């Protein structure tokens, strides 16, 4: 065929390791691409057979398939998704019930054992105040995961709804919103955090979450606006309109699935930076304050003693890195699964 190079099933499924049935279906797709588009359509003897195999592995044969069910089928077979999902699940569990794996109290400290290395019952050693690093790392997951997940959800929802609507409808509101995002972009994050959070009383994560959402949504809103404008220009949107589809249908069925990929990528990367931002703000003393337990507080507390007691810094920092990595990998896998071309 003249239009596209033949569909390269090998390249498309590399690494992710689909099952045998999916490979069969992919090779069938190759023969489909190569055959001339005659009125009969390419209907080789292996065609129906391969399809039945592919169907057998998925939902019952002949059932309608949709983007989301196909994406879920793909994700379950993707080891990257499985591993990162398990890590995130584990993090969520210990964030909710830290006492499941850590029996101690994170606030019970013994100055006599300050900066000590690992000891029986205290596998990660002790920090500068003589607190158990293992217990504090486990308990610190709650603040970090709460800030990361809630801030990202808030930013992604607010940003993509506002940006998407502005991009879709255009006009005056689009111009108005674009100027507002410009104003928010002009606020320096750390300075804004110092000013805003120092006047908010209380020692919970919610002011921090609120502050991150307030400063973070313009970034996602710009990306969502841009990708909605790109998706809007495609002929399939015109086709849907010509069929009489309503605006909400066009937005949800046609534009959102095609515009969501960059939002997912940026949001997952932002999730890592939000956890780090919470740590930064805690370090500066305006985020969470001791006696709250968070990775950011622990990292900042351990940083002066890095030469004597590196373990006190490395364990919470490692936990932070693994958390951020897990979320980024998850976002990557979800984005790929939502693109049928990569299947």
């Amino acid at each position, binding site marked *: 065929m003249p239009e596209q190079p033949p*569909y390269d099933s090998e390249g498309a499924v590399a690494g992710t390791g689909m099952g045998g049935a999916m490979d069969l279906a992919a090779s069938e797709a190759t023969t489909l691409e190569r055959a001339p*588009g005659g009125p009969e359509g390419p209907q080789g003897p292996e065609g129906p057979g391969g399809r039945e195999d592919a169907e057998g592995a998925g939902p019952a044969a002949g059932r309608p398939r949709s983007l989301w069910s196909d994406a879920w089928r793909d994700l379950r077979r993707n080891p990257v998704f499985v591993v990162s999902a398990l890590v995130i699940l584990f993090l969520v569990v210990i964030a909710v019930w830290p006492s499941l794996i850590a029996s101690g109290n994170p606030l019970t400290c013994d100055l006599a054992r300050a900066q000590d290395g690992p000891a029986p019952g205290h596998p990660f050693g002790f920090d500068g105040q003589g607190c158990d690093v293992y217990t504090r790392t486990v308990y610190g997951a709650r603040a970090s995961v709460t800030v990361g997940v809630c801030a990202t959800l808030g930013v992604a929802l607010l940003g993509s709804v506002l940006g998407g609507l502005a991009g879709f409808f255009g006009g005056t509101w689009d111009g108005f919103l674009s100027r507002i995002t410009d104003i928010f972009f002009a606020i320096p994050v750390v300075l804004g955090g110092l000013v805003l959070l120092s006047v908010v009383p209380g020692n919970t994560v919610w002011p921090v979450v609120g502050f991150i959402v307030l400063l973070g949504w313009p970034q996602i809103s710009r990306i969502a606006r841009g990708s909605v404008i790109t998706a809007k220009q495609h*002929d*399939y949107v*015109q*086709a849907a309109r*010509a*069929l*009489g589809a309503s605006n909400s249908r066009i937005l949800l069925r046609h534009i959102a699935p095609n515009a969501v990929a960059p939002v997912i990528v940026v949001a997952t990367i932002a999730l890592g930076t939000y956890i780090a931002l919470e740590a930064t703000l805690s370090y500066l003393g305006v985020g969470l304050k001791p006696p709250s337990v968070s990775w950011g507080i622990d990292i900042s507390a351990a940083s002066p003693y890095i030469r004597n007691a590196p373990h006190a810094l490395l364990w919470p920092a490692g936990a932070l890195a693994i958390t951020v990595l897990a979320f980024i990998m998850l976002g990557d896998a979800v984005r790929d699964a939502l693109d049928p071309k990569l*299947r």
Partner: protein
Amino acid sequence: MADTTKAGEPTDATPNVSDVRVAEVKSEEQAVAALDEHVDRGEPILQVRNLVKHFPLTQGILIKRQIGAVKAVDGISFDLYQGETLGIVGESGCGKSTVAKLLMNLERATAGEIFYKGQDITKLSGRALKAVRRNIQMIFQDPYTSLNPRMTVGDIIGEPFDIHPEVAPKGDRRRRVKELLDVVGLNPEYINRYPHQFSGGQRQRIGIARGLALNPEVIICDEPVSALDVSVQAQVINLMERLQDEFNLSYIFIAHDLSIVRHISDRVGVMYLGRMAEIGTDEQIYDHPTHPYTQALLSAVPVPDPDAREHRDRIILTGDVPSPANPPSGCRFRTRCWKAQDKCAEETPLLAIPERFKSSDSPAAHESACHFAEEKDVVHAA
């Protein structure tokens, strides 16, 4: 809009189109009912009258000020009869695709009317507009962007049924989709595949199946085969002809390939710079063109016979197409026409049967917007 009618310019540049029988409707129910009425073969089903679309040119960032308009479509009129194919040809930028979008109500017309079964669809909204959309469908130019890459073929072809649930009961939809795939020559088993797994020709068939899903009466084809290679073009064109006979469809076929338009069309309209230059049956246009622009266009058609090519009279136009934001006065074609005289700049030629051919019944007696229309057989010229 600013100056749709210049001084001395007629409001309707096409005096001898058939009368429109405007339907008497008082409520939305009556409008919807009138749109479902049957139209006999050979009766006009779509009547376009003096259609105008100007895209405003604005300047300024905060306070937008209109400084002009791109006159993409500037007063065209034609009829589409039930069961026929009307080809519209013209070079790039002459307003062909804008006409298609106006007919689909994807763009709001600046002025003029489009009557479908006696109702002006440019003024409809709500349920009546939805009923019109059920009856007028479109096939798009580029099969690579006209199908949503994240929907399965079953979802793409089934979407019309979701939007118009009255057409097919819920349990029946999947069977209907498979039937449609079969009708356009695709294996019904492909219902769960994604568009990227198909070739260009197969994708265009999927687009055609989506257009057919609602059993429309009129299909507007905006360059449906330009993006395909020649062998696949033939397959798609033949499929469209077969479907026309099978479902009694009326086509408006927009293209820039003259030979394909001749192959499929019953009548052909030639557009230049937002106006209709000449309109007639395919024999009248191709064998007896009277408008100089049509003659120039036809003389550029490749001829496969080297002998005939040697002796044929090529008309090579000089200059470029003028900007549609600032079109020439009078006849739009005068800046590039070898026959142009002072009259052409002062007086807009009407799209009418030229005086000199009015009494004869030669095929040259068809509507042509030229003061100095004369017959010149460029295709067979030796």
